[in-house]
């Protein structure tokens, strides 16, 4: 700069300083942040509210229409009157969406009622909501309780009391009968199948080596013995279930719909009934808690749109845990190798970049890999080697199709890069001075890693692992290919030998959301259930995340304390 005379100092105009502050642009960025937060918290709050409110008993409203039609139901939605905005077509009075239930009579679960057409609406005291095993909800009024032709109680109050007295015993007997049918008979069927397959296996063996031809006869004899025993035992079971069914026979709750139509409900097909208009707060709380209990602990009913999700919770947890067990050692091994053993060079850098990349590869790609490699490749091979009998006799693959093991392996592969990256970061966060101190004391490399490095890195590794579990628990696209099913009541871990059945297909909470929400024949009635499942899944994942965040903050604190 060659200017010799001093330039006069420029007065800054207020306008210039105003533009320099760029307040409008700051507001725009602030608006973006506010929008992001609003979207996210709004979504979470929406899911939480809709999910948590599904089971709360809602008052039943009796709507009397001007044309003398009557309907009883929960008000699911209210729309305020809409003023005409553009054309006259848009103008509409207020209306309400009633969950009218009684699908077998009305043909739908929900119905819109225009406020203008409603002459009167009230909340009758004895209005009862009945949750049935099949056919969805029933809304009506209790009339009488009878056993066969023998009337036990008549009139709403007496009937209700009698119902509460008798219902639990009837249900208990019903559940016992179902348990016998499912578990004990299922066990017999399994025994039969095992014996039959043993014969097929013996025949296959005999074909390959004639020396073992003698075993066919033995297996056949054993099969006959098993068949004899099964016939014997199932007769005994028949007696037991027949006795239970006889006791339940005839127990009927007569109800009346809002229209006055009489409906007889067999008592054993009633899951629960409540009278929301009579319930106190604590009464409602009782129903609420009971429905949550059923949701968490029971099997699903009605194409997964009612009942519980216990098998899905079980499947999610089992799969996530097996995945964690698989991914932890291998992830740590790979990270230890990359960070502590591999020589620094372009190859290591390339491998590191590749692994970082794999963390971003779409999960569906891993799903395709899992189906092709694990299910068809490995599973098919295992079937050929060990389960030929089932393959030949039943044309049924054992391992050669989706299953818990393959799903866990696929997800382990999917989360492996995440764990490797997290572990590497945790390892590199351990100060080199600590390693050097250890070597100076004469420790070997492995001793240093085991006693100094790994303990310090452990919280970081755990954080990565938990985040991987959170991702695995919510991932569903690859599972659709490698073993998740709509309905799989046989749990992968149960009381039948050999207790762990890694080849079984399983249910998963995240898949349930897709299935119930999109594949359900009646998606509107199933929607509240989907919200509850979503709420449960989000809660599980949020808990895992919070745990990881807590661990991370603990890790940070520990380092602050140990810096020297």
């Amino acid at each position: 700069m060659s200017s010799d005379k001093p330039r006069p100092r420029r007065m800054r105009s207020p306008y210039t300083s105003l533009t320099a502050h760029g307040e409008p642009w700051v507001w725009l960025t602030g608006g973006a942040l506010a929008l992001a937060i609003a979207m996210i918290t709004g979504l979470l709050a929406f899911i939480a509210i809709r999910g948590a409110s599904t089971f709360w008993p809602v008052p039943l409203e009796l709507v009397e229409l001007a044309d003398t039609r009557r309907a009883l139901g929960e008000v699911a939605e209210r729309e305020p009157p809409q003023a005409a905005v553009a054309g006259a077509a848009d103008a509409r009075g207020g209306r309400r969406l009633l969950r009218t239930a009684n699908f077998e009579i009305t043909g739908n679960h929900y119905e819109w009622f225009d406020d203008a057409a409603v002459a009167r609406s009230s909340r009758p005291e004895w209005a009862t909501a009945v949750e049935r095993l099949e056919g969805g909800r029933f809304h009506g009024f209790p009339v009488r309780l009878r056993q066969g032709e023998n009337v036990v109680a008549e009139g709403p109050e007496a009937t209700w009391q009698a119902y509460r007295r008798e219902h639990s015993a009837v249900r208990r007997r019903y559940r016992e009968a179902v348990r016998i049918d499912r578990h004990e008979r299922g066990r017999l069927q399994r025994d039969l199948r095992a014996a039959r397959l043993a014969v097929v296996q013996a025949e296959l063996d005999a074909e390959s080596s004639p020396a073992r031809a003698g075993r066919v006869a033995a297996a056949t004899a054993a099969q006959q013995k098993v068949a004899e025993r099964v016939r014997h035992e199932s007769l005994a079971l028949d007696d037991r279930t027949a006795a239970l069914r006889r006791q339940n026979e005839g127990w009927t709750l007569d109800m009346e719909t809002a229209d006055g139509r009489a409906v007889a409900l067999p008592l054993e097909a009633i899951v629960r009934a409540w009278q929301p208009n009579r319930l106190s707060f604590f009464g409602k709380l009782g129903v609420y808690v009971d429905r949550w209990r059923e949701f968490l602990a029971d099997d699903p009913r009605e194409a997964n749109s009612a009942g519980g999700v216990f098998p899905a919770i079980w499947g999610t947890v089992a799969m996530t845990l097996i995945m964690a067990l698989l991914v932890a050692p291998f992830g740590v091994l790979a990270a230890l190798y990359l960070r502590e053993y591999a020589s620094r060079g372009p190859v290591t850098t390339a491998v590191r970049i590749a692994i970082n990349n794999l963390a971003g590869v779409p999960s569906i790609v891993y799903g395709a890999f899992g189906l092709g490699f694990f299910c068809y490749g490995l599973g098919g091979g295992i079937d050929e080697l060990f389960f030929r009998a089932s393959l030949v006799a039943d044309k049924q693959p054992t391992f050669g199709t989706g299953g818990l093991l393959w799903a866990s392996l696929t997800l382990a592969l999917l989360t492996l890069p995440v764990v490797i990256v997290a572990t590497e970061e945790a390892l590199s966060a351990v100060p080199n001075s600590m390693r050097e101190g250890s070597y100076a004391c004469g420790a070997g490399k492995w001793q240093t890693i085991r006693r100094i490095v790994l303990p310090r890195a452990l919280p970081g590794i755990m954080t990565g692992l938990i985040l991987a579990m959170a991702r695995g628990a919510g991932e569903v696209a690859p599972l659709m290919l490698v073993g998740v099913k709509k309905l799989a009541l046989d749990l992968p871990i149960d009381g039948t030998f050999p207790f762990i059945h890694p080849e079984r297909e399983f249910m998963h909470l995240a898949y349930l959301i897709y299935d119930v929400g999109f594949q359900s024949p009646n998606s509107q009635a199933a929607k509240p259930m989907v919200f509850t499942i979503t709420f449960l899944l989000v809660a599980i994942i949020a808990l895992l995340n919070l745990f990881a965040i807590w661990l991370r903050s603990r890790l940070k604190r520990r380092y602050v304390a140990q810096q020297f």
Partner: protein
Amino acid sequence: MASTPTFTGRARRRATRPWVKASDGIARAVITLGGIGTIIAVLLVAVFLLAVALPLFRPARLTAEHADVQADVAGGGAVPGVAAIGADEAGTVAWILSTRATDAGPRAAELRVVSITDGKPLLVRSATEAGLEAATVIACSPSGQHAVAGFADGSFRVGRLGLESSFRAEEGLPAAVAGLEPGTAGKDGETIVVRAAGGQFATVAVVADFGGEPSVGLSAPVLDADITMQSDGPLVAVLDATGMVRVETRSSRRNLLTDELVTSVSGGTLESGGDGFEARFVRLSELGDQLFLFAGDGTARRYEIRDVETPALRESFDAAGGAGGVSGVARMFGGNALAVADAAGAVRVFFPTRAETATAVDGLAMAAAKLFPPARVAAPAVTALAASPRSRLLAVADASGGLRLLQTTTGATVTTLPGGVGGPLGGPASALLVAPRENRLLAASGGRLAAWALDPGYPEVSWRSLFGPVWYEKYPGPVHAWETTGHESFESKFGLVPLIFGTLKATLYSMLFATPVAILAAIYASQFLPPRWKARIKPTIEMMASLPSVVLGFVAGLVFAPVIERWLMTLLAGFLCVPLVLLAGAYAWQLLPAGWRSRFAAWRFPLIGLVALPVGLAVSRAAAGPLERLLFNGDVAAWLDGRGGSGFGGWVLALVPLAGVGAAALMGRFVSPWLRRNGRGWSPRRAAVVSLATFAVGIALAAGLAVAAAAFFDALRLDTRGGLFGTYVQRNALVVAIGMSFAIIPLIFTIAEDALSSVPDHLRSASLGAGATPWQTAIRVIVPAAASGLFSAVMIGLGRAVGETMIVLMAAGNTPLMGWNLFNGFQTLSAAIATELPEAARGSGHYRVLFLAALTLFAMTFVVNTAAEVVRQRFRRRAHEL
């Protein structure tokens, strides 16, 4: 050596303990092996996908069976020939109907059954025995054993001809056949026994029954015939030497009273000769609604025969491309397309299409969709054609003795066997056959039968058909299409382009919405948010990144989709109004005295979030109605549907962002400098008012620009409908973009915020110390320094959007459409894999194409992520240097 005294008095150990060494070695071995193994296992994913997808491009294999296959099928007479060949389901046994030359032409001589693998004759029956005495023509239906035979006296018979396999238990088989190798045939007395490749035994019976009453109606020798099976019985068409065609349908019904099978015959006769048209070939469509006649000179005619008694001429077309006569016609699998060979050796594939140019009354026009040029320049004529009974594969034999296998969907030549003196046949083939399972190719030449083991590979897939437009049957022209499920003879459409397009569409629209929000939010969070709040807000948003995509898909598909459909105009208005209200809020904030502003600085963010944003939404809602009336004729859904309104509104909507940028640039270029120069003496308050006024003028200018440009385009009769906008479908790209932004915003935000925060503090301090305002520091110092970090954040978001499955599966409608319409559905690569892979048969072409789709997805994300990673590494080094 004397030991030095030590402090403890004990001798110091100078050697490492052996177990420490051992454990070190073991650990090194285990970790190295395990580590490398794990890394290889992870990298194996790509290799495996490639290994599954690669066989798609493997060429077909055609290997001659061992030497003695060439069975002698001479039927006696001077020049033996072969009229027809057939094979059993497994492709182990073949039947050959040989001919004997007579003065009046070849006549059926005998029916022979031979084993394909070794050429051994298994059975011989004379034509008389089979009811085919003096038959001139035989045509078999592609499925089943129905056939029609035409005779020299103009009569014809409908009967059955073929082989019937039935399963046979292994026990009790005589030793002669019990020892058969799998895949071969043998004889037990008069019974033919075959052993399948899987080891099971079956007996094969010859069905040759033309015993019924002959149909009369034609008087000259039969030239050609065709048969197709309808639901109630066979439909046949027979052509005689005078050009007369007889069409007959036979329907069999069981009489309910007498339980007798009653066959009723109805038919009509068609005279084609007379105007110089000398029909040489006759073919029926598989549905039985069309009849085609081909003349020797290359012209052809299409008749409609829905009513068989009165065939009606619909269209005449040129079947040989002006290159001479037609030398053979074959009906392709599926029954829609006909392959026509001309005298010059070229093969064309014709099918009826619904073309707009069609002149026929039924609106159809025969299109020559594919042309296979002659095998060589010398152009030997085609002597025989045979369509595969399970795919669109066509075997072609030419006069030089060469063979070709063609795929008529993709237009690819699958494989060729050169002819000539040393050729496999030694002469031109007179009959060809692709076995029912496509495992054998048979050709008869003179009196000999040659067989090849055939492995066609995946001819329905080729690079061109995957990534280029293909002319599929019934379509008016070549298109990109993805359609993989249909009935048995469905023509699968494996075009990956619609899926790749859908993936890009989802990515583009999602990024368009999510990127600005995430980056701007990251700038605010890192530069302007009090640290105490940041500590709360950042983990919250981070946690959102792990929200399962199935949840977002469900919310987008079932909650957002109906809401957006109802509030569409409000949403569209919101894209305009919310930023405007935020800007207006900022200008209003400037009106406050400087002292107040700094005192309430901590309240700025709550003000933005809790006041400005809701006000923006309220304004959008209020503005929705007037805007809808102004731009979209009062009903945006109807406008999108193309009902009413001009193209003006769409242009305004599309151009407003551009106009905003343009107006801002104009104001910045011309107005602001003037104000800066002339505003020296103003009070701060006056400056704030003037800037508010400038803002208002800027808005007006932007609106004016947008309206002017929109009016201009509208006057040119251009419309955004059909391009950017179009008919509203409930599950569409807008819904996906909003649902996906819930997944992408947290991801981009987190990485971008990290990048911005990791810019060293001394840069910031220096900038502020030099007198820059926080905004100037942020935009001129921090953002440029972190630019590569921001870039990699966007790339990682992009990678996630490309591969996202559940959201697009649940909210995009899954229709593989092409078109940029924001309000239409689409299908992505990932959604196609998720829905179709479980159903695809293992090892089929469909299965492998889906793996190719997975590989494509893998490659797309790998490229994007590598770019992001390389940039990020560079950013890290640079940040280190700063």
